[in-house]
């Protein structure tokens, strides 16, 4: 499979504190890759570094094009959608305005309208609440809204930051079922950050284990699942 994203020697941090100390990893076209790790390992920072929300050094290339150091707006225009930590809802706007904003950089109006209907097909609850102020949606609905907004970009790469965070198990199952379906049907490549390692390894093809800003283990999900350290520290058996 072709490489969609290649990361070499990625360093990033906040102010004087460096969080990522030279990461190397790759994402394959059409697959789901997951980054596992404990709190503070640098998972969220990795996603933020890819789309230019923190200062970075090192190489990041998307489909062969260097994107490290570009502005977030420009990286988004190259087809990287980000479902951020905390969901990033525009709480004052309506559900539908939130979704429509996801397609802000696209000019193909007919395709955007079709995508909106398709996404409402995945998340019928959002359609019911299209005129409702987005801040009043439940946590699960806001997570669905964040995913919908990102999908409206019609992205080449979807970055997902803990989509299970703070949600009831049933909702988490539903969201993951839909994510898998979108990946299979529409071939959207995904990079998934998740604290719930068992869940992430279930959906992902590839996994990287991050410890204090370094990749310590990598491989296919099946290999990682059986890795001694991962099993004991992150899967708990």
């Amino acid at each position: 499979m072709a490489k969609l994203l290649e990361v070499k020697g990625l360093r990033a941090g906040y102010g004087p504190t460096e969080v990522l100390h030279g990461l190397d990893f790759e994402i394959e076209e059409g697959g789901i890759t997951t980054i596992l790790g404990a709190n503070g390992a640098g998972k969220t920072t990795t996603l933020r570094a890819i789309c230019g929300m923190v200062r970075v050094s090192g190489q990041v290339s998307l489909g062969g094009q260097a994107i490290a150091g570009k502005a977030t707006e420009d990286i988004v225009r190259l087809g990287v959608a980000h479902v951020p930590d905390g969901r990033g809802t525009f709480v004052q706007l309506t559900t539908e305005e939130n979704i429509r904003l996801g397609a802000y950089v696209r000019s193909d109006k007919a395709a955007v309208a079709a995508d909106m209907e398709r996404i409402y097909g995945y998340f019928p609850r959002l359609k019911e609440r299209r005129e409702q102020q987005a801040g009043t949606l439940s946590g699960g609905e806001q997570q669905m809204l964040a995913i919908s907004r990102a999908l409206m970009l019609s992205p080449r790469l979807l970055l997902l930051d803990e989509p299970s965070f703070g949600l009831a198990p049933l909702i988490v199952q539903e969201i993951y079922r839909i994510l898998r379906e979108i990946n299979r049907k529409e071939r959207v490549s995904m990079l998934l950050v998740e604290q719930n390692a068992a869940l992430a390894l279930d959906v992902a093809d590839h996994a990287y284990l991050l410890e204090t800003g370094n990749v310590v283990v990598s491989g296919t999900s099946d290999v990682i699942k059986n890795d001694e350290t991962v099993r004991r520290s992150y899967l708990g058996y």
Partner: protein
Amino acid sequence: MEAFLHQIFSGLAAGGIYASVALALVMIYTATHHINFAQGEMAMFATYIGWALIEQVGLPYWVAFFLTIAIAFVAGFTIERIVLRPLADKPVLSIIIAFIGLLVIFNALAGFFFSYTIKAFPSPFPTSPPFGNKFLSWHDLGTVGITVMVLLLLFGFFRFTPLGLAMRAAAFNPESARLVGIRVGLMLALGWGLAASIGGIAGMLVAHVVYLDPNMMSGILLYGFASALLGGIDNPGGAVVGGFIVGVAENLLGAYVIGTELKLSVALVLIIGVLLVRPAGLFGRRLVTRV
């Protein structure tokens, strides 16, 4: 009774002016979440440009009117880029100081270029009273009409155009806005440009009534603040209604209760009262958020 009606109508006429200043304030607040204290002086300076275009260049009124709006837009846009952009991550106090600096600079520049002598500003409307009434002039009616038209245009722009939606998104949540590809800095600058244009419109309408001098907006800006707060600082429609309420209340209280000398304090009492009793204003949206 006739004197009473006269007070009401001249209150409505003044209200039209306060409403347009309030609209400019709401505009900047919607786009940036700041209250621009220099809004009045920027409007005054734009009005001087309009005056120079009419009286010194000799352009027809409406040509000068729209040219002034365009110049004000470019100026507002540029001020955001040059003065406020570098302060983007600074504490709000730094930004307020910059606003006060702009206020003083524009006031001084106007005096320097155009002198402090009071100037008459023309009106594009006929001078004869409309329909034979003795309460309202054509200029008063025109002011109200233009204000309402600006309001409708703004409402349509923010509600129904993708650019308007992007500007609101950039103001509410800059980080998420960047994540959908909105150029947030550009949106803020556009917001400043729009506000400066609206301020310019207000200035040109005011100047015919109060005459043009570098301090003409100081009192009006206070009424504008009161109107914007009363209507709800994030609600353009509310700001316009607030403008008319403040205009009428100020005139009636001035004529029958506290006397004209203390009229301006009505604005201050209103500002403090609204902030204490109903901070969201009459029509402001009280935000509900689940956490």
